């Protein structure tokens, strides 16, 4: 590693140095080696101090951005009456509860619950608390509506798992208290909304295995109605007193046909449900404590409908909606219990719940999708025939269909009623419609990023107008004079603000062209909604977004899986834009057909839509070969272990045929505990593959872990695009160790099956963590290490010749981080300087895994305070700069930890030479320096991954962390030794030079004059 040079000194100036240029004055001597050494020294100047990323307050936002999202909205509750700030409280599929400003869509407050704490229901109680029911109905919380503080929390224990239902009665008072009724764990709980106290509990487990579907409080009564099904063949209704939970009445009626789906309430005493065959509608009427069942064949109501009938869950009083293959049908239930078909609408129509509108009137909204627009119509329940309100809103094609709608009404200034609608689109974005316009939009699809790729921006076109140059020059000068004023403390507060504004909004950083340093790029993000976004790294704005058509074509549920670089034109095919390959799967099982599409990285257009293709995809392998148009060759492995080659061109096939004997692939079967290695079959077997781009593979090796003692919990490999600068590691006393650098190395961590649960589920004696380094070409186990009394979860990162992994040590009751470095023993003999000078060494000969090189490893473990969500490592363009680990902590922050802290060679008393090398004295724990949080004051809520991309500038690495939030910054692990800092004052430098030139001139004139005078004397 370059910066591990042996010279150290505490100088930290910023020498400006280009790597390609050897320093000219020194080249007189032993030029080449000297130059290398000097560059190392200069590197060392900058890396000798442990750099931290602490920023000044005014540097926030200069090169980082942070975006806050909430995810796809599941439920929304409006809070607009008697409120100063009109807001909507939402819960999302990312387990976020948020309060949004209805005017601008900004987040007032937000809470991200854990991944296991799924929000089931939300509501508002007492007009001031947001009530959330989560974790399958076992946790009930109340949050203060204005500021989001938690008011109380109650844990509800049940006897068995069941549905989670929440009912917050609007005007129910029981002994000065307003109870909340929750059905969860097969019990009905009544909980005080003021302080979360338990009022009573009614266990239904004793009543037989009844499954309650609805919890209803008819207005004005003090009885809770619970409607449920027992063994899907008997309807049960229970009436329970709100004060004490006493069972007042229980009625039941058997229904042998069985039921499908949920019971939907029509009115206080009427319910509707489908029978098991989905062809009969059952209307349940409770009259005088008796249950009447009435069956109606759907085919009698709707002609020509098939089996795929579903009752939509929208609660419209007196009406329900039924979705069939042909469309959606509204059915009215008359007072006599007759079903009347009212209207048929298109299948893509989305219906909201009914909303009390005016005196006894209820309104609901339905949204119809048109071409480039959506039609929102509000109808009154009692007058279905006409639209109460109809608005047409222009809608971006890339947002797809409407998935959900929530409506709310308000009183206009002229006392008429207006409606606003919150709609959730196919791409998970959230929009507020009001008066036929989109008031605001939130791109909340970005809360569920699956995979990240990057792309370069287009090269800047040559030819800039003179006026522009003059203008920019003037601006430049003005900016620098302001800056100079700032440094000389002459600036007024206004000017200071102007300086800060210039710094933050420099047009330089958000340009749509490639820059010299490689800081400006496009981040291409694949989201769970199947939408592809391109974000500019300069300011984080969305450059383009595409809803992938290849994932929408079939009726099957398609989801994106992976994003790969498809074409990166560098040398040839320069007039082509770079493109990315999106691999998706249509269906839930591994053998479902896959969908492929190639998307232009500059415009977001789908260049090729190859999906759905016939074969399935379980793995995507990006081969290190390119064809003449610089398309990367990819192997897609299907469920039958066949390899499919892409692009499907004869040229690609030729390249692959040529290289196929050295192409291998492996699979990790976590459940079975087996690693398998495969090679591509040369000759076609008897059952010929369907095309010339499909290859049979054969199993070469298998590593079977004993299932009774080991279970695979984590595997990690090197990033395929990682660049390693050197194979030698210089250690103390000018000695050399040769790294074992192989891209075919796999790190596998296994734990004993008992210890695979959460921490604390196994005793230290039972839990063993075993880590392996496996060569994936030959299946050879390079190294194996056992950590007794330790367990997962294991997070690991593999880079160059080392692995750092994080796990829990049960004996020490602390988290640990271990490092494993692997060195090549077969090259260790290359130490004779003379032989190296004349080139007599085997260091550059290609290596084969079959030569079974001897390896040695060094390892060390350290305590680490935090539990970890993700680990990554910085990557730079040439791999010279020292590396930092990027650790996503449990607090959703990203911590940069110098790799030198996790060096296995650290010892208690390092020798002088080792100190010079930069080896730190051994400590038992890794330090957490508060300044080295790269996310500084921000949190990347729900952090899932950290991606690093090298910039063109060797010192700098671009970091993108994603979860519910997105965060981007760039870091320089050894400081920016190869460029001047952002705040370098060019104007001052220029002025100094000018002053010096003037001074030289003046003194020259003066000295001439003096000389002349001397001569005349």
């Amino acid at each position, binding site marked *: 590693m370059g910066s591990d040079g042996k010279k150290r000194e505490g100088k930290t100036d910023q020498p400006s140095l280009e790597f390609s240029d050897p320093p000219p004055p020194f080249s007189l001597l032993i030029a080449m*080696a000297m130059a290398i*050494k000097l560059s190392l020294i200069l590197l060392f100047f900058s890396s000798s101090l442990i750099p931290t990323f602490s920023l000044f307050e005014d540097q926030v936002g200069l090169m980082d951005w942070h975006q806050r999202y909430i995810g796809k909205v599941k439920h929304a509750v409006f809070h607009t009456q008697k409120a100063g700030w009109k807001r909507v409280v939402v819960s999302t599929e990312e387990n976020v509860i948020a309060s949004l400003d209805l005017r601008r869509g900004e987040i007032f407050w937000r809470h991200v619950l854990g991944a296991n704490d799924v929000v089931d229901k939300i509501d508002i109680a007492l007009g001031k608390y947001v009530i959330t029911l989560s974790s399958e109905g076992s946790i009930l919380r109340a949050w203060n509506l204005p500021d989001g503080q938690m008011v109380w929390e109650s844990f509800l224990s049940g006897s068995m798992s069941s549905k989670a239902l929440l009912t917050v009665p609007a005007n129910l008072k029981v002994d000065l208290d307003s109870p909340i009724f929750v059905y969860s764990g097969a019990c009905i709980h009544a909980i005080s909304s003021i302080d979360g106290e338990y009022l009573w509990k009614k266990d239904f487990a004793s009543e037989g295995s009844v499954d309650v579907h609805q919890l209803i409080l008819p207005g004005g009564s003090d009885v809770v109605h619970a409607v449920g099904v027992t063994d899907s063949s008997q309807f049960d209704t229970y009436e329970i007193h709100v004060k004490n939970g006493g069972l007042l009445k229980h009625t039941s009626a058997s229904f042998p046909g069985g039921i499908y789906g949920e019971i939907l309430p029509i009115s206080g005493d009427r319910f509707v449900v489908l029978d098991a065959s989905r062809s009969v509608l059952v209307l349940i009427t409770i009259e005088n404590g008796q249950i009447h069942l009435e069956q109606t064949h759907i085919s009698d109501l709707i002609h020509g409908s098939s089996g795929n009938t579903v009752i939509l869950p929208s609660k419209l009083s007196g009406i329900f909606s039924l979705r069939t293959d042909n469309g959606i049908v509204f059915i009215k239930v008359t007072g006599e219990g007759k079903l009347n078909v009212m209207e048929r609408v298109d299948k893509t129509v989305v219906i909201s719940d009914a909303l009390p509108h005016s005196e006894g009137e209820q309104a609901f909204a339905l949204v119809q999708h048109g071409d480039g627009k959506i039609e929102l119509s509000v109808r009154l329940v009692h007058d279905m025939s006409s639209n109460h309100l109809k608005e047409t809103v222009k809608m971006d094609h890339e947002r797809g269909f409407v998935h959900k709608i929530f409506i709310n009404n308000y009183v206009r200034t002229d006392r008429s009623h207006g409606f606003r609608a919150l709609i959730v689109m196919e791409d998970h974005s959230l929009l507020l419609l009001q008066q036929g316009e989109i008031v605001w939009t939130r791109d909340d699809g970005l809360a569920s990023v699956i995979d990240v790729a990057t792309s370069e921006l287009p090269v800047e076109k040559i030819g800039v107008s003179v006026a522009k140059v003059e203008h920019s020059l003037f601006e430049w000068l003005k900016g620098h004079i302001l800056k100079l004023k700032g440094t000389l403390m002459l600036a007024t507060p206004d000017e200071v603000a102007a300086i800060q504004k210039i710094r933050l909004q420099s047009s330089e950083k958000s340009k749509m062209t490639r820059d010299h340093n490689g800081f400006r790029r496009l981040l291409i993000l694949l989201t769970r909604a199947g939408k592809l976004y391109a974000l500019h790294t300069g300011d984080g704005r969305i450059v383009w977004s595409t809803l992938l058509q290849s994932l929408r074509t079939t009726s099957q549920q398609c989801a994106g899986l992976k994003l790969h670089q498809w074409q990166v034109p560098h040398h040839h095919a320069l007039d082509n834009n770079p493109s990315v390959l999106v691999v998706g799967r249509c269906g839930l099982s591994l053998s479902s057909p896959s969908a492929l599409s190639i998307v232009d990285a500059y415009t977001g257009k789908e260049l090729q839509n190859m999906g759905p293709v016939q074969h399935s995809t379980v793995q995507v392998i990006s081969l290190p070969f390119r064809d003449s148009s610089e398309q990367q060759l990819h192997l897609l492995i299907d469920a039958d272990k066949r390899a499919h080659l892409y692009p499907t061109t004869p040229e690609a096939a030729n390249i692959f045929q040529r290289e196929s004997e050295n192409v291998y692939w492996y699979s990790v079967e976590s459940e079975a505990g087996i690693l398998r290695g495969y090679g591509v079959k040369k000759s076609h077997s008897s059952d010929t593959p369907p095309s010339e781009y499909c290859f049979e593979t054969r199993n070469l090796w298998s590593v079977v872990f004993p299932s009774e003692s080991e279970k695979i919990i984590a595997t990690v490999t090197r990033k395929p695009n990682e660049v390693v600068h050197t194979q030698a590691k210089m250690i103390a006393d000018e000695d050399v160790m040769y790294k074992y650098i192989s891209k075919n190395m796999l790190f596998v961590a296994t734990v004993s099956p008992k210890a695979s649960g959460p921490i604390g589920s196994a005793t230290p004696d039972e839990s063993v963590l075993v880590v392996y380094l496996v060569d994936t070409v030959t299946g050879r186990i390079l190294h194996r290490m056992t950590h007794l009394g330790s367990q997962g979860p294991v997070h690991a990162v593999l880079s160059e010749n080392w692995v750092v992994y994080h796990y829990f040590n049960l004996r020490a009751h602390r988290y640990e981080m271990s490092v494993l470095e692997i060195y090549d023993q077969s090259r260790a003999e290359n130490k004779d300087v003379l032989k190296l000078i004349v080139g007599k060494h085997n260091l550059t000969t290609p290596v084969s895994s079959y030569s079974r090189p001897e390896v040695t490893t060094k390892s060390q473990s350290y305590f680490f305070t935090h539990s970890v969500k993700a680990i990554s490592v910085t990557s730079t363009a040439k791999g010279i700069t020292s590396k930092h680990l990027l650790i996503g902590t449990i607090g959703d922050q990203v911590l940069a930890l110098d790799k030198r802290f996790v060096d296995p060679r650290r010892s208690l008393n390092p020798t002088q030479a080792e100190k010079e090398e930069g080896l730190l004295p051994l400590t038992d724990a890794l330090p957490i320096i508060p300044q080295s949080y790269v996310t500084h004051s921000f949190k990347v809520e729900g952090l899932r991954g950290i991606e690093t991309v090298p910039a063109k500038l060797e010192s700098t690495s671009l970091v993108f962390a994603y979860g519910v939030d997105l965060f981007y910054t760039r870091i320089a692990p050894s400081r920016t030794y190869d460029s001047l800092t952002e705040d370098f004052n060019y104007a001052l430098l220029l002025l100094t030079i000018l002053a010096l030139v003037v001074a030289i001139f003046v003194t020259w004139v003066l000295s001439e004059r003096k000389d002349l005078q001397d001569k005349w004397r």
Partner: protein
Amino acid sequence: MEQLDLDHSVPVFHIDRLSLQLLLMEKGKGVMGSRKWAVDFTDNSSTPSTRDIPDPPGFTRESLDLDDSSLSRQKKDAESNWKSQKAWEVAQAPFKNLMMMGFMMWMAGSTVHLFSIGITFSALWQPLSALQGVGKVFEPYKDNKVDLLAPKLLYIALNLGGMLLGVWKLNTLGLLPTHASDWVSSLPPAHEVEFSGGGIALH
């Protein structure tokens, strides 16, 4: 003012016999400095052919020479003695430099920073430039009778010593590529023959 014909009015001074010797040297160092001007006092009286102007009638050069020969020989001896002495002085001058350099190097320590690098490179550069100018340094003392070889050798040896000192310093600073690490640090990792990819099935 009378207009003068320059060709004839400029008096020609024959300074053959002037024993005036003016050598502008830099204080103390002598050898290192460059002459600004000098009067060539070598006796070229025996070579009248170089002159444009013929000797006046009745003037015989030989007789004059004979008269002064003993005096001039004495003078020449003194001169050559003085020259060789000076040459030895000049030859020994780098020694002082060497001591000074050694002291400075000791002061600079063995860590790499601006100062020590500067010292080391000046220690390398000075002898090198001095060696380049060996001929020039000893030019003033060039004489048929003076043996300049020994002082020159001493001078060269001392400068080489200085250079060695510089190289040694370079080595103590660790700037010489004398270790294996210096030769392998820039070697890229060896190419791998096989390629393998894959992993856990996508889900």
